């Protein structure tokens, strides 16, 4: 049984449940408490849990993320919001040198069970500095885990898995998905956890595999509908959900089923998630391919501001349909 929740409310429910489960879970970030969250993901949690468990930080990303990393080494389980993942750059030393490497450099003596979460997307008319999509960037660092939910159910399940994980997990959300609604399992069904490293087929198909994560999954589903009704092409849509760990088996299985692949990725083409996935496919499923692997990424430029054209820079159903038709 299930009910309908927004992506935002599903995330909030996951955070609320984990605050209830483990007294060492704390939420911190800019405007997460008294302001109820810049995007209202944490709305009501400060009022419910109080200032010890949910608190506002100054605009000081390197400071408060480093603080959370230090606290996690002692047993606190900080969940830290970046108002935009784009602000990672001012905290990069903490996110990479400290969170990713402290376990290794200590020979396994330390660990760092933190979650850093927030939106990582373009498409909102805020220009290049606020539109970075860094999942491939962070997935490139051994020691880090990265996921990017596309649906409300996955958002709840992945945030809960991330909080319970004993390694640093960076959860990349999307401001354009926060208001989307979807089915989320009922509370009576027990803890709803989506394990890291497990992809999900969001639409079955036989002709072409569309492999994506985050909002690109939603764009793929729209494209798949157009391709079926207007062109008679049946696309399978595989939602990676988790970038690292990565569900390689699911990727190879869909490729072996359809023999044609279009990777859809809001990252830029150079070194994006799709670059890695494409490499794995050619390495492990070369003989299953009937056509070259194709990609739809964000157009390779800093994010443009203009609302008139920004959506064309990002993967969208029109671009995906056009790319699939090149394989036909």
């Amino acid at each position, binding site marked *: 049984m299930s009910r309908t929740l927004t992506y935002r409310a599903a995330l909030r429910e996951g955070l609320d449940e984990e605050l209830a489960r483990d007294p060492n879970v704390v939420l911190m970030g800019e405007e997460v408490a008294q302001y109820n969250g810049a995007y209202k993901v944490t709305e009501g949690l400060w009022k419910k849990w109080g200032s010890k468990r949910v608190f506002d930080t100054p605009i000081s990303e390197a400071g408060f993320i*480093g603080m959370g990393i230090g606290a996690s080494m002692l047993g606190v389980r900080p969940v830290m919001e970046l108002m935009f993942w784009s602000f990672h750059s001012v905290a990069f030393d*903490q996110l990479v040198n400290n969170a990713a490497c402290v376990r*290794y450099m200590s*020979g396994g003596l330390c660990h760092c069970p933190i979650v850093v979460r927030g939106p990582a997307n373009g498409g909102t008319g805020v220009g290049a500095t606020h539109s970075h999509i860094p999942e491939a960037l962070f997935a490139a660092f051994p020691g880090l885990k990265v996921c990017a939910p596309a649906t409300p159910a996955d958002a709840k399940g992945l945030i809960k898995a991330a909080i319970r994980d004993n390694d640093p997990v960076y959860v990349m959300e999307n401001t354009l998905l926060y208001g989307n609604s979807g089915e989320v399992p009922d509370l009576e069904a027990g803890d709803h956890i989506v394990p*890291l490293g497990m992809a999900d087929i969001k639409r079955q198909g036989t002709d072409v595999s569309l492999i994506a994560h985050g909002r690109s999954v939603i764009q793929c589903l729209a494209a798949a509908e157009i391709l079926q009704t207007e062109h008679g092409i049946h696309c399978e849509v595989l939602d990676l959900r988790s970038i690292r*760990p990565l*569900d390689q088996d699911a990727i190879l299985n869909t490729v072996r089923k359809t023999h044609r692949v279009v990777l859809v990725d809001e990252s830029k083409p150079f070194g994006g998630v799709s670059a890695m996935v494409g490499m794995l496919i050619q390495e492990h499923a070369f003989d299953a391919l009937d056509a070259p692997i194709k990609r739809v990424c964000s157009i390779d430029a800093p994010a443009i501001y203009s609302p008139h054209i920004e959506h064309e820079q990002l993967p969208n159903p029109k671009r995906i349909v056009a790319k699939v038709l090149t394989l036909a």
Partner: protein
Amino acid sequence: MSSVPPPALDFATSAINQSLSNSQKIGLFTLMVRIRRFEQAALKYYNAGKMGGFLHLYIGQEAVAVGTISLAGPDDHFITAYRDHGHALAVGMGMNECMAEMFGKQSGCSKGKGGSMHFFAPDKNFWGGHGIVAGQTPLGLGLAFGLKYLEREGCCLCYLGDGAVNQGTFHESLNLSGLFEIPVVFVIENNGYSMGTSQERSSAYSGCLAQRAEAYGIEWDVIDGSDVYEVRAKTHIAMERARKQHKPTLLEIDTYRYYGHSVADANAKKYRTPEEIENYKQNHDPITLLRRRLITDGLLTDASADAIHLAAAEEAAVAVKFADEAPIPTLADISTDIYWESDHQTPASKIGRHFFND
């Protein structure tokens, strides 16, 4: 050579130092000597090609780590930058595991994965050993935040060099410590040089570096790092403020390093005069000063002090032998200690691909 007047105050008479037994006073001396002998051995074998990377020696600064860490209660914690050997020995890490780490051996404290700059011993409340200048300051803040959050009475001593005070993260950490009332003591070990650039050429300041704390409403103090008794007396106050009042402090401990920023610092003798170094050795060396004091007080003789040096040198020689003979890491070792879940073979570690080798 100019003689320097003795300290105006005798901190040996402060309560925290009067509480020391004779053997504890000799213990402070012994630990400082052990650090120096360890570092001298490290230098010798670094130059002999037994180690890779950098070697940042603590020689000259021993009273800082020994004095401050001698005040540790059961839930006081420590974190420092890359010049970390003194702190490591002061918290009770063994010479063997530390030397083996620098030799890149499996028996090293970080299994040969961290090196000279990255010693850790969480079981002794020592959290590194961090390579990026000031990168450890928010971690120290976070350890202290954790103590307060978990309702444990203790504090975190977070060490940094004078070269770290101009990094943004340090100022962010100061602000957060004052704002959230975090039981942290930031300790600037001011050896006068950020690598090869003197304090005067690197920092804009009024009076002293620690005075910057006033901008954040934080208590501060300046300490003569050549006098282990002064280090203890003043640091004790800061630690009590943290433990009992959850108030941070910024301490500046004036000290000196005999050697360069690292052993690879080819200009170490160019940006400082020979007279400056010689003056420090004669008049400010913390080991020399404490030795004189303990002999004057009748706790040591020249012979017993020399015996402590000899024993420390022998201990360091044993550590070198241990490190030299220890096994090297295997290829398989490269791929462990990355994810907690993978190291513990948990169900989560079995889902999805975590590593991407072939």
